């Protein structure tokens, strides 16, 4: 389950944020602290997650302390779906 989640998030970010649909993102690659996902894309990401997985992320959670990698984001989503 978690792997599918990661895959889905990765392809969304590669296509929509990076404009590189073929780009591979590793589950443990830092996204926020590395600047791959910039602050202007965070609201988008939160909206995508809510629409796709039915999980709400509060705006106060859109920071690297809450999640920085795909793996962390996926487990956050999974924990709220449970």
């Amino acid at each position: 389950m978690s792997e599918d989640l990661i895959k889905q998030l990765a392809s969304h970010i590669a296509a929509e944020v990076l404009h590189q649909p073929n780009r591979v993102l590793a589950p443990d690659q830092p996204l926020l602290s590395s600047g791959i996902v910039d602050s202007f894309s965070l609201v988008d990401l939160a909206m995508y997650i809510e629409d796709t997985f039915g999980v709400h992320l509060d705006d106060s959670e859109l920071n690297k302390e809450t999640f920085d990698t795909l793996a962390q984001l996926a487990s956050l989503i999974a924990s709220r779906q449970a």
Partner: protein
Amino acid sequence: MSNFSSLLVNSYNECPEKTAITVLLSGKTDQPVTYRQLIEGAAAWDQALTRSGILPGEVVVLIQQHSLELIFAYWGIVLHGSIPSIMPFLTEKLLPERYRADLSALVGITRPEAIITYREFEPEVRAALGEGSSVRRILVSDEVQPAEKFDPNSFGGLQRKNDDIVLLQHSSGTTGLQKGVALSHQAVINQLNTYANTLKLNEQDVIVSWLPLYHDMGLIAGFLMPVLLRVPLVLLSPFEWVRAPYKLMQAVTHYRGTLSWLPNFAYNFCAQKIRDRDLEGVDLSSWRAVSNCSEPMRYESQQAFVKRFAANGLNPAAMCTCYAMAENVFAVTEGGIDGLVAVDEIDRESMQVERKAVPAQPNRPTIRMLSAGQPLTNTRVRVLDENHRELPDRMVGELALHSDCMLSEYYHRPDATEKAFHEGWYMTGDFGYKADGQVYVAGRKKELIIVGGKNVYPMDLEELAMEVPGVHAGRVVAFGLFNETAGTEDVVIVAEVDTQNETQREQISDAIRQTVTRGSAVALRYVHLVDKKWLIKTSSGKNARLANKEKFLKEIGQG
């Protein structure tokens, strides 16, 4: 004649309990600050500067998060008679060593005598200051004690003369930080009084802003004007707004906001990224002027905004435009205060080929140009050709301006100051035309990318990309590409590489993204790697950004 300090002290004497600023920060209750509290908070900094031996006329750089402390410190420096300059603080994505380099760039040219920062950041600041630095003192927020008894009529700032410099304004990046716009008391006060008339500021007005204070739009329209002219200000954090744009709408509703300034992308951003549920109870009918400012203004962006918030009472006539620059303190023009902003529908081909704004012809493609409005009554705008001759209406040329609120100089940069003027007129580096008394801005002569309202110099980004192994000096080009959906420019980097290996290319591309983003806090939208000899160079060997941009567009099939 009044100066910044006398205006503030007058407010303290005449209306001490009036709320000057309400600071909105997530997780805290809204914090109203009266003029009395503002002066008391600022007096603590004035006293700290005195104890530190900092003198009137000396420059104090402020590096602080968006906070009450930043506000108090700013006014403390003003009341002390010193010259404040706000520098953006380190964000998490920016590399500390890069930030240090930026800070050194600013310190090296501006030669400030003091820096005010917060505890956690002090080591960074120290590390950036080399031997023999001009900085005599670093002050940390939490060391500052509440003000001891003070006489409001004896602040050093009250002695500052009209033509003394009151503040420095920098734009970002190494290039921007080395060009501090120095403004006099007189210039800023002239701008504020004239702009207040243009805007028809009145007793009912409330300004709501989320803009950062290190940027001229945030500093002048969203901070100094309201505080000095006693217009209540509701201040949100840019950091929070970008994660929750609905907070602006809720603040306007709650405080009955009447005026705001937004960069063009923010119209798209708000229109696209606010959920219906966050608009419950939102009433924007109090908004009478929302000025589009600091990046190219788009008709489509304002229309999207109007459409999205019509159900929340937004008045379409509240959409305004403003052409502004720190070199004129802030506003050069304003449109839409009386009635709708003028829209000039012109022939696309004449504009693109002959640089002429010919009114739309039947059955031919057109462009809708949004007027920037009319020049402020104290500002004259001319359209000049390459030989500085004035052009007739509807011909595109470089915009030049003359006013009683122009910069005194680029601080410690006589070379840059001289280059910026021609016979007393400030050459803006922007292209545009005039028609029916309205000013239309159409492109830029200067090499500048404006992304999300922030000015970025392409050479700074190219320098960063060249640090990546596999990328060679002089074989990189950076430019902006307008993105219709976002309403702002996307940043593109094209770099020549030797390797044909896909994996290696991906690694280089990643490294460019990381190095540029972490070195400039600008996110790249496209990194395009090409083979040797792809880039077009000019005869002087200089980077031809425009030609390379066109080549890139052709290659990705949009040319």
